[in-house]
């Protein structure tokens, strides 16, 4: 076996984290992006700035604040333990929460652009054809914004795959539970196990590359069909 069992587990945790985070991001990000694309609220840009923060903030800074707020004395951790839940820091759930914050701009921004480019007209047409607002969203907005959804999903997924700083801060590198591939690679290199670092890095590289090939291929097919 080229990859050790621990490495395989780290890869598995990484994929699981990316999948769960992407799902959560799409569920939260879609209404948020829709609101941002439609709202006339004058302080909307403040929300947009907050969402974009992880783009420029060092991941360790974000991770540090998340660690504080997820801990037993932090606002989120405190609330959870008050409701009788287990502490979130150093757990998989904590990682998901961190990843959602960290990858939010990569999901919200493509969706917001896709929604904005549809414009109001198709929705007005659909309304005159008796479609209710929910009906309009699922039969007009979702299919028309399909390239945006693909881009958002894949970018969110890929960005979570490559996460390091946030995961390290709030995950604590516990093998089998919170150790992800990027940290496992770091550990290998630190221990001068270059061979294993190669295999793990190569797997991530190949996977990420294939993922991006898929996105660009899908988006290209979509635009070519619509001259």
């Amino acid at each position, binding site marked *: 076996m080229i990859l050790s069992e621990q490495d395989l587990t780290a890869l598995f945790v990484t994929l699981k984290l990316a999948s769960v985070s992407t799902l959560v991001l799409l569920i939260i990000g879609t209404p948020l992006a829709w609101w941002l694309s439609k709202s006339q609220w004058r302080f909307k840009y403040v929300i947009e700035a907050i969402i974009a923060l992880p783009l420029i903030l060092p991941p360790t800074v974000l991770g540090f604040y998340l660690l504080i707020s997820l801990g037993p004395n932090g606002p989120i951790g405190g609330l959870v333990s008050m409701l009788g839940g287990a502490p979130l820091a150093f757990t998989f759930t904590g990682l998901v929460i961190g990843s959602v914050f960290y990858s939010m701009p990569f999901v919200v921004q493509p969706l917001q652009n896709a929604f904005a480019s549809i414009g109001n*007209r*198709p929705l*007005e*047409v*659909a*309304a*005159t*054809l*008796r*479609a*209710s*607002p929910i*009906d309009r969203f699922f*039969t*007009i907005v979702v*299919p*028309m914004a*399909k390239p945006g959804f693909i881009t958002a999903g894949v970018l969110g997924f890929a960005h979570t795959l490559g996460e390091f700083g946030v995961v390290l801060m709030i995950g604590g590198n516990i093998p089998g539970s919170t150790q992800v591939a990027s940290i496992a690679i770091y550990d290998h290199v630190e221990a001068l196990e270059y061979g294993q670092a190669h295999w793990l890095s190569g797997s991530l590289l190949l996977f990420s590359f294939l993922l991006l090939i898929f996105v660009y291929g899908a988006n290209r097919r979509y635009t070519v069909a*619509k*001259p």
Partner: protein
Amino acid sequence: MSIALRFRLQRDEFLLNVDTVIPETGVTAIFGPSGSGKTTLLRTIAGLEYAEDGYLKVGDIIWQDDRTFLPTHHRKVGYVFQEPSLFDHLNVQANINYGVRRIKDESSKHVLQQTTKLLDIEQLLKRMPWQLSGGEQQRVAIARALAASPSMLLLDEPLAALGDEQKAAILPYLESVYKTLNIPVLYVSHSRDEVARLADHLLLLESGEIKACGPTSELFAALDLPLAHQANAETIITTSVLGYDKDYGLATLVFSGGQFSVVSGPLPLGSRVRLQVLARDVSITLEQQTNTSILNIIPVTIGQMVKQNNAQITVRLMADDTALLSKISCKSAYDLNLKEGDKVYAQVKTAAILI
């Protein structure tokens, strides 16, 4: 099913301020220069704009008042926008079915076949919107609006985005739509030609205010409105076919004040025909001419006369209760000593009459 409405809506360019009743049958054109609030009025009727304290009653149903505001998807309107606005991700068939699938009333679903036939798009059903020409797209958009079996059709300059050729190609379809369906049609336009050809009623809008409303033929011939004073001023007369002479290709059309001979293809006896007679093609004689090439000589009484300038005068001639506008030179009017109440003859060349 008449449409009573009262709206006040502030916009940058105008204050829309209307209070009127739109007739239950036929085509009502909302006519006026751009920026006069035509589109806003139509959108407010469809519920796409909200006018505070507005009132809208369609038939017995209140669509908007102090307590009610029916959202657009609960209003049974068919709306055709200036650009075709087909759904790009659906083919023609699916575009048309979009509205049909959402009709609650099963009995209205048969309209679908009728409309695809009426607009001649049966051979386009499998295509995607971007594979169609502009005129075809607009025809599909009209069919889509009709297939949802609306109780009112709202058209916002549906021909404005089309070239002259496509416009000419689509007009006959619109005419057959109006004749076939028995629902009120509101037609926004700034084209005098389209209005003259299609509209039964007219609502003249200027800077958001209604300047006049009434039957198109009356408003076109009213000398106190600007329509009768434009260069291409014309009279619209509704006639019915009395006979057709195939040897000469001439139709005899009768109206309350007399009859016209018109060059045309065969017309079914008794059918209704709308004539457009340009005011500058109507001349006046004091005595009935004989030995003339002009076939249409109609006894009339001179009504109102309004001078355009030093050279030209517009005369409103009454053939019984039908008005006929004539634009003649001031010199002729002076030489013939024309005055209100005189009995004279109006002459129109057959070839000058447009059907």
